[in-house]
């Protein structure tokens, strides 16, 4: 069951914040709908993107080798990491070898997944997140709650108070434009002083060895163009075959994410800039396991637009922190059980109504709700009590007389079960629901009575 997610949601997103969060997130969904309606070839575009990704995943070995070869030819150094630890050690070594202390970072869900920030901080590096939303959650010492809008769970008042404490903005200042200026000034100095820039990667083009990085703020570009070394970290699923494939994904990505026709900056970087170093780290961290699963490999097609989060009734009311994963929402619940095997990950596919809205908006055609259902079968997360209940139910359903007898017993117990009292096994279920009044008669009893009367 999804009791854990439910409990965390209650702790992390207070009652009052739920309505605001729900509205803010759904507004992104509304903007997405408007943008999609203006693209006449949207559905063919989605199908094309899904087909390109199917081809890519089926040729991932040759595409990875091609990308490596072309990126090297352009002057990049390509590294491989089997898991999060190998990735973190590799990045730390690159920094240590150059005696680097000050690092600017732009948004990367991969480095969130690997816990890179905490790893580097422990070793004494000064790592500054530069995406405004990421900076807000970094200063607040909490993880992002949304993959596109990391601080969507925070109000302007909370952010104003945080900036006052951490950056000395005037007390009580909560105007988004003035707060943005405060962060801009502070971060501009950090960009200029940075000795290394770490970025994520949206797409890696095998044909040319190019990296594609998109932002609205321009923070990834400043991180790439000022320091003498750029370290780009990406999961092995970020590959696309050719430059001609890129516009297919670019036309889908921003429209699905925020309803913009394209992000403000879309940078295609091929090799290091003159006089600088470019290091590319290709990370597996469970992706090859997911690739081996016929049911779930399509989840590797995800381009991290966040559309499935914005439309999901569970995400909208629970908030991203409740998931306990780097990527929350439906795609997070599909990826988690494939990337790691623990009770928390197993429970996530149950936190869904299977309404299918996620599948309907996914720009690369991932069958998200079918995959959630498949995980429930493949990795059951029922406890011993639930299993006993289900097994008992199967026996009772198979024996009509026993069923009728227990039905009458349940009718007597109903008033007690429908109320919350300490020790009632149904208490948790009743937290957010009310049982209807008991009708007094079972369906069969009523049927017989009506028939005899007729």
């Amino acid at each position: 069951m999804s009791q854990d997610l439910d409990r965390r949601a209650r702790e992390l997103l207070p009652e009052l914040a739920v309505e605001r969060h729900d509205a803010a997130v759904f507004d992104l969904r509304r903007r997405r709908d408007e943008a999609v309606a203006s693209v006449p070839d949207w559905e063919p575009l989605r199908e094309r993107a899904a087909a390109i990704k199917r081809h890519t995943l089926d040729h991932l070995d040759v595409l990875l080798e091609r990308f490596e070869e072309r990126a090297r030819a352009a002057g990049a150094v390509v590294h491989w990491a089997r898991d999060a630890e190998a990735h973190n050690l590799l990045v730390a070594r690159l920094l240590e070898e150059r005696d680097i202390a000050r690092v600017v970072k732009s948004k990367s869900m991969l480095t969130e997944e690997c816990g890179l920030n905490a790893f580097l901080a422990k070793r004494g590096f000064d790592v500054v997140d530069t995406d405004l939303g990421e900076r807000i959650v970094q200063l607040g010492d909490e993880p992002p709650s949304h993959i596109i809008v990391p601080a969507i769970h925070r109000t302007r008042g909370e952010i104003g108070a945080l900036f006052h404490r951490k950056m000395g903005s005037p007390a009580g200042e909560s105007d988004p434009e003035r707060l943005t200026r405060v962060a801009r000034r502070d971060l501009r100095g950090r960009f200029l002083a940075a000795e290394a820039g770490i970025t994520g990667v949206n797409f890696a083009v095998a044909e040319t060895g190019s990296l594609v990085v998109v932002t609205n703020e321009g923070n990834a570009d400043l991180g790439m163009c000022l320091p003498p070394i750029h370290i780009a970290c990406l999961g092995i699923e970020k590959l696309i075959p050719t430059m001609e494939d890129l516009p297919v994904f670019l036309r889908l990505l921003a429209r699905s994410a925020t309803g913009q026709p394209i992000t403000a900056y879309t940078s295609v970087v091929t090799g290091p800039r003159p006089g600088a170093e470019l290091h590319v780290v290709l990370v597996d961290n469970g992706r090859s396991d997911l690739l081996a699963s016929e049911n779930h490999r399509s989840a590797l097609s995800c381009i991290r637009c966040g559309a499935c989060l914005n439309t999901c009734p569970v995400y909208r009311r629970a908030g991203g922190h409740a998931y306990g994963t780097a990527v929350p929402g439906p795609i997070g619940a599909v990826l988690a059980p494939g990337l790691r095997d623990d009770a928390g990950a197993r429970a996530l596919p149950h936190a869904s109504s299977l309404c299918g809205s996620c599948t309907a908006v996914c720009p690369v055609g991932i069958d998200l709700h079918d995959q959630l259902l498949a995980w429930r079968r493949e990795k059951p997360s029922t406890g011993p009590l639930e299993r006993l209940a289900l097994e008992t139910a199967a026996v009772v359903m198979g024996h009509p007389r026993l069923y009728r007898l227990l039905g009458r017993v349940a009718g007597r117990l109903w008033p007690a079960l429908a109320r919350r009292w300490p020790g009632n096994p149904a208490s948790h279920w009743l937290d957010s629901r009310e049982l209807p009044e008991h009708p007094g008669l079972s369906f069969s009893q009523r049927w017989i009575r009506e028939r005899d009367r007729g």
Partner: protein
Amino acid sequence: MSDRQLVLKRVRASTRHRVDHPGPHQPPELPGGWGTFAAALEGVGGRVHGPFDSGQLAGRLSAWLEQRADGGRVVAVEAAASRLGPGPWELAEVEADPHSFEGTAVAVLLGGVAVAENGAVAVEGRLAPQRALPFLCRHLVLLVSTDAVVPDLHTAFHRLPNDALAHHHLTWISGPSKTADIEQTLVYGAHGPLTLDVFGMEP
């Protein structure tokens, strides 16, 4: 086994090389032209001037700079300056330390292909080798030729010159730097330029 060998071995075990590439996407005929591009650019927070013929362009830009630059430093890349001729701008050095562009009030660059569906303009390494300049300046000006406008992004990638990737970076710029990370309130000038102005050039 090295991480490279291990990852490739695991990936190879799950690839069969049977699914063909679907081929290029053929977009339907979308509206193109300068007017559509200008509307898209204004929709993402940019401003559009002109188009002007080559006799007017430098004068119009100079007049606009007088207000906008407010006495600050105006830097133009060689490719833009050669279109404009002499004016109130200094030439950006190709070999300059990128940090030296901090404090630039206005940067003037020559744009390449422009896209009507999303207001994006290609800024190529070949035409703007100073990678940091369009991000460190407070205000960005792009000169865009009216015949560089194409309807959609697929056509735009096809229209790029063959050596577009040979100069390290190619950036599609669509509007000024922006963020909506504080309560979804749109703010221009998150990290990069606060404004983007496109001056149209008649061919």
